[in-house]
């Protein structure tokens, strides 16, 4: 039975510092042996997950940092794939990071049961570049977003994961007006000393979630409409990726692209010069490096059924291609075919890991 508690945000505290104090206490008391948490880098210019064992090292951490340079699902995979660390490690993750971890768990790349997932409410993140620019310009990223919500990444504005879908402990900030952080867990050791949540706190969170969901659904519809208009047909697709430099960074940063070496970088895609001449001769010219469309469409065929829409691909693109927009659009058309929603639950079997005799076409 899940217990609902509360961390009060005191004078001079922020929800971040208040929550951090609770996490620090869990580390100090030995209820957690380690904590993977976003940590300030370069004086707050960005935040990256850091595995902390020393409570004193938590000073610069922020569980609610509004930036996500790397999807935490990738880091949890690194942490647990070969062999999960002994002891209890808390991992602070946003819902889209949890979604990635859920997919990777099913792909045997994460051992989700071997870490303590600390899910946090996420109002959205700013791209790394924007975050750095804001800090460098002396602005507070959070207040900047409050003024200009359009600063959020498109993936965040169209996020499907407003509600934390899986956790061992929830740190909820939605609907709290900055006065408290809601903590939900079934594990008493993670709740030590916290007061019961007052009446209405969870309801307020729920109603905020519904409001945010509403906005996000509307934004998604608007984005899809743009795709309908511009990203259709061979020409639309070609235009979308026109400036691609075939660096494969989108794949590198994709949390559900988990292969050791991408198939599209393997020997299969290395050719003799004569072969490239053959193509050039048949087409009149050959784009170099080769296989741009093959890479994007092929990668899509490999992972779009497990795409969780975190938009890391877009953030990673050095030439500003909105890769995530295309992938999310296709994902939302492919996954329902298998009655699947990537990142939703560890219990839904991967679409390609199963089949039904009586389904799809041809019959």
């Amino acid at each position, binding site marked *: 039975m899940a217990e609902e508690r509360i961390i009060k945000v005191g004078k001079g505290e922020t929800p971040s510092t208040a929550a951090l104090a609770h996490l620090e206490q869990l580390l100090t008391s030995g209820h957690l042996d380690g904590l993977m948490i976003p940590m300030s880098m370069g004086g707050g210019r960005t935040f990256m997950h850091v595995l902390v064992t020393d409570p004193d090292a938590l000073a610069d951490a922020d569980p609610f940092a509004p930036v996500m340079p790397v999807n935490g699902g990738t880091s949890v995979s690194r942490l647990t794939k070969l062999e999960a660390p002994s002891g209890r490690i808390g991992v602070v993750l946003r819902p889209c990071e949890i979604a990635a971890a859920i997919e990777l768990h099913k*792909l045997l790349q994460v051992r989700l049961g071997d870490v303590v997932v600390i899910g946090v409410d996420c109002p959205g993140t700013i791209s790394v570049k924007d975050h750095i620019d804001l800090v460098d310009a002396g602005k507070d990223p959070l207040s900047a977003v409050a003024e200009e919500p359009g600063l959020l990444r498109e993936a965040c504005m169209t996020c499907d994961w407003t509600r934390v879908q899986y956790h061992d402990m929830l740190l909820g900030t939605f609907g709290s007006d900055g006065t408290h952080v809601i903590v939900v867990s079934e594990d008493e050791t993670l709740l030590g000393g916290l007061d019961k949540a007052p009446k209405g706190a969870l309801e307020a969170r729920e109603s905020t979630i519904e409001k945010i969901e509403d906005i996000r659904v509307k934004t998604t519809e608007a984005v899809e409409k743009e795709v309908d208009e511009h990203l259709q047909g061979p020409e639309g697709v070609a235009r979308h990726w026109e400036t691609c430099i075939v660096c494969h960074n989108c794949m590198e940063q994709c949390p559900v692209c*988990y292969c050791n070496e991408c*198939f599209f970088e*393997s020997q299969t895609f290395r050719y003799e010069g*004569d072969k490239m001449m*053959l193509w050039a001769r048949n087409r009149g010219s050959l784009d170099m490096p080769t296989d741009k469309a093959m890479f994007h469409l092929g990668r899509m065929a490999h*992972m779009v059924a497990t795409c969780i829409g975190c938009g890391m691909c877009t953030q990673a693109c050095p030439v500003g291609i909105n890769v995530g927009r295309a992938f999310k659009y296709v994902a939302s058309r492919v996954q329902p075919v298998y009655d699947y929603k990537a990142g939703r639950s560890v219990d839904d079997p991967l679409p*390609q890991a199963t089949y039904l005799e009586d389904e799809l076409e041809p019959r």
Partner: protein
Amino acid sequence: MPRIGVFVCHCGLNIAATVDIAKVIDRVSQHPAVAHAEDYIFMCSDPGQLLVQGKIQELGLDGLVMANCSPTLHERTFRNAAALVGLNPYLVEIANIREAVSWPHMKEPERATEKAIEIILATVEKVRQNTELHTIKVPVTHSVMIIGGGVAGIQAALDCADAGLEVHLVERTSSIGGMMASLSETFPTLDCPQCILTPKMTQAGKHPNIRIHAYSEIEEVSGFVGNFQAKVRHKATYIDWSKCTGCGVCMTVCPTKKIPSEYNHGMANRTAAYIPFPQAVPNRAVIDDKNCLWLLKGKCGICAKKCPAEAIHYEDNTEIEELEIGAIIVATGMEVLPVEHFGEYGLGKIPDVVTGIQFERLLAPSGPTAGKVQRPSDGTEPKEIAFLQCIGSRDPANYKPYCSKVCCMYTGKQAMLYKHAVHDGQAFVFYIDIRSDGKGYEEFIQRAMEEEKVLYIRGKVSKVFEDEGKIVVWGTDTLTGKWIELRVDMVVLATAAVASSGVNELASKLRITTDEHGWLKEAHLKLQPVETLTAGIYLAGAAQFVKDISDTVAQASGAAAKAIALLSKDHLERVPIIACVDQDLCVGCGYCETFCAYGAIAVDPVTGKAEVNEGLCEGCGGCAAHCPSGAATLTNYGKKQVFDMITTFTNGQVVQ
């Protein structure tokens, strides 16, 4: 640069009349990897093969593309020919330019020639990337498990055991013998099973190489051809068989006497502690825990008190035994459609309407009436009996579409035996048509008609009902077109044969398949009727489809021969075209494992990488297509090979 030889066959005029061979040779020769291209009128002939072999040696060719007919015809021919002169056979590939080119495009020679050239060049791209492969050797266990102890299982067991194999004969009832043991006499020889089956049963029981697992079922089967692991569940007998002497005292004292006897198909009753019939092998008693008063209510216990061998212990002695098995023969036989069907014929409602197999028991000297034909309702001797054929068979709208095959013959036999028993009796047989296609069968039916004066009426019966102690049968004689109403004393229904109950569950444990009616599927209906699609598992008898005894025994010996041949060597040789995994590329996601229907590829929990079991892999290549990183591949069907074939088809050939 590889040195590929291309050999183009004219196939007389079959290819050459449509495909411009000279043009093919010219174009193919330009491919940088082609060291030699040559044509010949019949490449599969001895001179043709000699020509190929000569060129391999003379030019040191390291790959061959044979452009001729479908690979199903001569792939093996040319691979063997190449192997004889030292070229690894898996470096030989077929380009099909006959079935796929010259024959279906006879009216378009130019485009056909173009297609032939592209197919050959694409095959060159494939073969130049083939690797040498060597037959995989898998050690075998020299034992056979036979599932089902009817006449099929017994015959297969005896054949295998005589060949020196260790045999495990698994039977779910407490005695072997199967359906044949319940028969009265057998057509067309009128031998009684006691005369011809019992000796075989005894022989099986005493054979040093045969172990009978009676009252046992298959729990689980894993492994692969030559190396199966089977778990056999010895069901609880509540009697210590090492002490039981089969004396039958428990049967005489058991107070629960009204259980329909399976052996007698409900025509007689048995007790809760019982031996199914006197000739049972093994001759051991079991206690039926669904009916025993002691086991159900803790009352009685009389058999334990009276058993002279002190064998009864009322303890659940279920035991799971694990066996190492090289080959499996499935001989689960058949049943007839159960009695809850056929309300229109009064079955299950009118006691004197019985099924054919029930009537066998009324005819059998070993049966409840000691061979005297009596009505189940009142024990009187029936003076008139109507036999109805095709009840539930050849009836796609309501029951089974197929012919149950044995009914014509056993109905004729039953009518004849009835006449032997009741000299002044009259037998009527309603039939659609008579199928008597075995040795001596037609003569047998003629004898029934002419000598025994059995009255055959062509037509189906529409209704059977009881009226003042008689059974009224309505039907039509379709030869005279006349409506017929008979008032008889008994009706015997030749109900449709169906696959044994539980066979679907068994099939899925064995990873073999059944058809829509539950009959086990053979590898090929005409040419591999004994094999299944799973290597090392064979079919015997009526499990595959209805069979009479002689066909059953023949197939059982066939299945045994297959198993004996398979296990005649110490190692099995398998085609080496199987999956393999690049351990560096493998990321251990397990997609391959979810694909494989054979459990042949799995992520090793220690290394975190997928590994292929060479004995299990059937070489479908599904895991390779499922693997996102390209770590899994099907040998000689690599992705780059396919890509290069696609390039040839879409862009033509690479020129230098």
